[in-house]
């Protein structure tokens, strides 16, 4: 009887992993077919050849016959050639936009987490609203305001500022990125700061630390992982952005890497270049992604501890 019982429970324990695996299989297969394999397809197009007559990209499905001539050309172009300007511009715009996002977003998240008081829910709702307003609508709103006879342009004219906002202005593009992505920074920042143990900050203050010292030596180190994760979370889509630029500037002088990808894949006959740029961008971003995954894993470990 006893052995029978033991046999039954063991069978049960053994059969359940298979059950859970069965639950995970459909989704895993889906993601393998439509997320992992597509990356391979990108590589096969990127390292493929070009049809000599039709000039179209011919993917090479076997890595053994991959051809790196075009890849070398694109990477040289990114490093020293005509695409260099685009690469540098992308980094500069994203770094500037990120800095501004933190300068504006951190005090807001901090206030929400610590000093919001009885209006907290109202403020939280108002902060979340832009999160749910369509990105295109928010850009459209600024296109209307910044166009030649737009309200903002007319308003600025009163101060003698007559600036062509929507005609290839790096300022507009950078501020557009800030406007577009800052809601996605504020919420995770708030979530991080809300979770902090503020008693430690109070303790530092009680022990004689000045507010600035307490901030630098206690608040910042405690929230660092969350801040970095939140920053990466908006840096990734910003690096791949092309629509903000397209809507607010449309000028080659402000083009980012995303615009080049969009151009090569959707408007030109050189999809191979597009595929190569997608690969280059992914490799560059892989750095941030692995960092992000590591820091969130660390965070969840801290929470569960």
């Amino acid at each position, binding site marked *: 009887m006893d052995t029978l019982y033991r046999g039954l429970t063991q069978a049960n324990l053994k059969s359940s992993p298979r*059950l859970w695996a069965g639950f*995970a299989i459909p989704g895993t297969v889906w993601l393998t077919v439509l997320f992992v394999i597509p990356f391979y397809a990108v590589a*096969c197009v990127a390292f493929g050849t070009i049809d000599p007559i039709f000039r179209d990209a011919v993917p090479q499905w076997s890595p053994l016959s991959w051809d790196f001539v075009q890849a070398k050309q694109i990477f040289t172009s990114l490093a020293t050639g005509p695409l260099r300007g685009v690469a540098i511009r992308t980094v500069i715009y994203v770094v500037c936009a990120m800095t501004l996002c933190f300068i504006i977003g951190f005090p807001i998240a901090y206030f929400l987490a610590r000093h919001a008081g009885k209006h907290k829910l109202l403020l939280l709702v108002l902060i979340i609203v*832009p999160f749910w307003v369509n990105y295109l609508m928010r850009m459209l*709103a600024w296109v209307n305001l910044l166009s030649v006879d737009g309200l903002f342009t007319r308003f600025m004219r009163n101060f003698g500022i007559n600036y062509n906002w929507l005609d290839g202005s790096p300022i507009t593009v950078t501020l557009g990125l800030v406007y577009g992505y800052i809601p996605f920074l504020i919420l995770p920042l708030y979530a991080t700061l809300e979770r902090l143990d503020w008693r430690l900050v109070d303790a530092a203050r009680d022990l004689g630390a000045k507010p600035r010292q307490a901030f630098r030596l206690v608040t910042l180190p405690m929230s660092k992982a969350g801040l970095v994760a939140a920053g990466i979370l908006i840096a*990734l889509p910003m690096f791949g*952005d092309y629509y903000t630029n397209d*809507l607010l500037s449309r000028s080659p002088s402000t083009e980012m890497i995303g615009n080049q990808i969009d151009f090569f894949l959707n408007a030109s006959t050189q999809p191979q270049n597009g595929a190569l740029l997608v690969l280059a961008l992914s490799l560059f971003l892989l750095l941030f992604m692995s960092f992000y995954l590591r820091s969130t894993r660390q965070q969840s470990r801290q929470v569960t501890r």
Partner: protein
Amino acid sequence: MSNTTKRRGSPLAFVIWGYIIWSLVPVIIAVVYSFNDGRSRTVWQGFSLRWWITDPYASIFRNDETQNAISNSLVLAFTTLVVVTPLGIALAIGSQRIRGRSANFVQGLTSAPLITPEIVVGAALLLTFTRLFTAVPLGFVAQLLGNVTFALASVVVIVRARLVSIGASFEEAARDLGATRWQALRFVLLPMLWPSVMASLVVVFATVIDDFVITSFLSAGVGSETVPLRIYSSVRGGATPALNALATLLVLTSFTVLIIGLFGLSTWRKRQGERGGLRAALADVTRMDS
């Protein structure tokens, strides 16, 4: 103590109200101009409903192409929901409970789409559908597959968070009382997952209805044009305030779904005697804890 807290907080209060004005007023102005009587999106010429309903050709509810875009958007959003919800729930349960090396692989795979820029996913799928899986035509089918792939990760994140907070004890209790593993899952766990399912329905609907990049990369001309695509292609042209009206409609749609979802979530929580109310519901739909 509370006095000093307040004093330190007050310049920050300025920043926060300034931010709220900055982030909302331009949108409100755009909404107001959808009721402009003239053709301009920037100079006010009196109130009218011509771009919404009264103009027989150019108003959004009577223009054929706009109607086509609206129905494309809705069909895409609902079919994506139908496919992604069961897929995501199963993947969340499975990926949380399997162990070993395959568990790491599955977990990495499910979180990767969440942090991959949309342009990369869109470009990769475009190349895949035009060169590898050529049986999949660009247009609705490709857009559906793309949106499910991108939305799957958010369903998994939301449902998995709920699974973690539920824990294993309820199911174990049911098993001790004689339920089979399947019965425990069906009658104990699934009903408890309901708020996360509702939250993911809301999040996925809003993501898909607003999606521009993937839907645009995988579109095939006018036949698969959605509302965001239509807005995008006319923002910088000489479009009439009908454009503002269409964008307003899009915002209204996602807010309606959001409010229904929040209302449903907080009543469910109240009925179940769970704490949190509106704030917990807000956290559910903004993935603040992801």
